[in-house]
């Protein structure tokens, strides 16, 4: 099978969706800029025209509202925020409006909008150009939240999101854009809410999101050399998340580490830990452990950044600590 980068896979999904469904359009910041969202939308406006690929003013709030309104009116917009930080200016249309809309009207009106945002950190960008706030949106009924970690899922989850018929937050990660993997040429969907078991093992379950899946894979290699057999679960969707697969794995291994590249308090890892404690406590042979960011804004200096972002070694340390419990 042919290989594509994560960024190319995102671009291909957009192109196929635009080509196949006249209701699809893309709106957001930077779509005509020479950077093309880290090449993930490389020259897409040249292929589909500026009517269907709209580079918006710096009006996150209205742009999000426009996408939501167009979706209610029967279109299939993909709204783009080049950084999650900027999306915080658009919380009203996303949370108050899109998320509640179906419920408020007894399911009579759907909001088939995809809200794509990018975790874009590092490089001494600091606190307002680095945030990963996916857990905020996981909290809200009425939103689905997906976070692909591979090129295959980057394409398949975007197609699933556009066809879902509900507001879906699609969150990708610039630190994954150069990852290369097999991607089918045809259109396909990756089911929302289904985790992927990336490696089977018997000693410990490591559940990860997005970029931390890459770190978890590296950690598993290091641990395997030391005789520790890890089972890796890539959540892919954090709302709804695949509790069945996670619980089955924990019942087998008896140990759980959750790795998520966001703040610790009320994060994805906290939710999973709470569910596992509630459903499978008696299968646990060690306390549940979390690998997350500290509850601190992102620093700029490279010396601090290096410590701030957890890596494979942090997961290894965590697992080894559990094994001696």
């Amino acid at each position, binding site marked *: 099978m042919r290989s594509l980068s994560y960024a190319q896979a995102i671009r291909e999904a957009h192109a196929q969706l635009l080509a196949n469904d*006249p*209701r699809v*359009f893309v709106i957001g910041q930077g779509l005509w800029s020479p950077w093309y969202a880290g090449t993930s939308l490389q020259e897409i406006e040249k292929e589909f025209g500026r*009517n*269907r690929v*709209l580079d*918006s*003013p710096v*009006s996150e*709030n*209205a*742009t*999000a*509202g*426009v*996408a*939501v*309104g*167009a*979706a*209610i*009116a*029967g*279109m*299939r*917009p993909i709204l783009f925020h080049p950084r999650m930080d900027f999306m915080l200016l658009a919380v*009203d*249309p996303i949370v*108050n*409006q899109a998320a509640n*809309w*179906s*419920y*408020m*009207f*007894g*399911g*009579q*009106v*759907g*909001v*088939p909008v995809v809200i794509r945002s990018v975790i874009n950190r590092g490089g001494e960008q600091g606190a307002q150009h680095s945030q990963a706030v996916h857990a905020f949106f996981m909290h809200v*009924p*009425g939103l*689905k939240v997906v976070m692909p970690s591979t090129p295959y899922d980057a394409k398949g989850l975007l197609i699933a999101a556009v066809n879902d*018929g*509900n507001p879906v937050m699609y969150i990708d990660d610039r630190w994954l854009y150069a990852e290369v993997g097999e991607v089918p040429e045809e259109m396909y969907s990756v089911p929302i809410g289904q985790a992927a078991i990336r490696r089977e093992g018997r000693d410990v379950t490591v559940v990860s999101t997005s970029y931390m899946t890459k770190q978890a894979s590296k950690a598993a290699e290091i641990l395997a050399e030391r005789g520790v057999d890890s089972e890796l679960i890539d959540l892919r969707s954090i709302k709804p998340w695949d509790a069945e697969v996670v619980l089955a794995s924990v019942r087998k291994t008896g140990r759980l580490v959750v790795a998520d590249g966001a703040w610790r308090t009320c994060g994805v890892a906290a939710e999973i830990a709470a569910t596992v404690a509630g459903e499978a406590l008696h299968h646990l042979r060690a306390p549940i452990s979390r690998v997350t960011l500290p509850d601190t804004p992102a620093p700029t200096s490279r010396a601090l950044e290096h410590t701030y972002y957890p890596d494979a070694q942090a997961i290894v340390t965590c697992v080894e600590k559990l094994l001696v419990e």
Partner: protein
Amino acid sequence: MYGTMVRIRRFEERAGELVEAGEIKTPCHLYIGQEGVAVGVSAALAREDYVWGGHRSHGHYLAKGGGLRAMMAELFGKATGCSMGRGGSMHLVAPEVGIFGTVPLVAGTIPLAVGSALASKLRGDQRVAVSFFGDGATDEGHFHESMNLAALYQLPVIFVCENNFYSSHMHLLEHRAEDNIHKLGEAHGMPAVRLDGNDVIAVYRATVDAVNRARNRGGPMLLECRTYRWRGHVGSAWDLDVGVKRKDELKDWLPKDPIARVRVSLVEDGMQQEEFDRIEQGIRSELEEAVAFARESPYPDESELLDHVFHSGKGCQ
């Protein structure tokens, strides 16, 4: 248009009584005094045109053709309500007449209206969108961002500001530095007019012009309709407690009643008392039938609490 205005007035008066009686619990923001705006605008629209509203939207809903019985049942929190008991007074819906949702977050539906106009432009159809909002909404960033986007993309949307001189309890000049809402059109690249919102014919004519412009790809327009909210921000009370100034204002505004003004001209045109009475009687019996329907309807079943968080069907057209 006269009959529709009276129908809204009587609905609101009845809703106010039912709020006082404790039968209706959902917060009701009554539209009494402003009927000329909703009715004048809606008379210039086609059934499939989009209308977006806010917390004070009973009038918009009825003027555009939403079902009266379904709204009354919604105010009672019943399963037969237009939003199936999930919306109450502040979340009304009637997709069959272009109302895909009114919601109370101030200015929240302004960008949504622009989005529906963008959908219309991308599809190449003839639908226009109307966004109803109050003077308070012009203080929100949503409003300014949306005006700019609509003008930039030349979208078929009509911004209808119902300047009723009150943002909740605050007079216009307590929340805006100047009484100049119509000037915001020019600032955002679109024409605007300031209108007497209590003159239903003037509102209708201005909307016809704006709709023609929008349907012919002429872009958006702002209409500032000056009117007055007779009752309090929420509930049935006359809200005189907010001060003497308001009491004096109300004295000036009551004679400008949009319904009484049309009635005068209808009488001049020779309309007989029996005809006015017939309209009133028809509305009275429709209302009492709707109240009976709402009272008798079942509440949503507890087993359905978790339903509808996600939409199972396809997006509405």
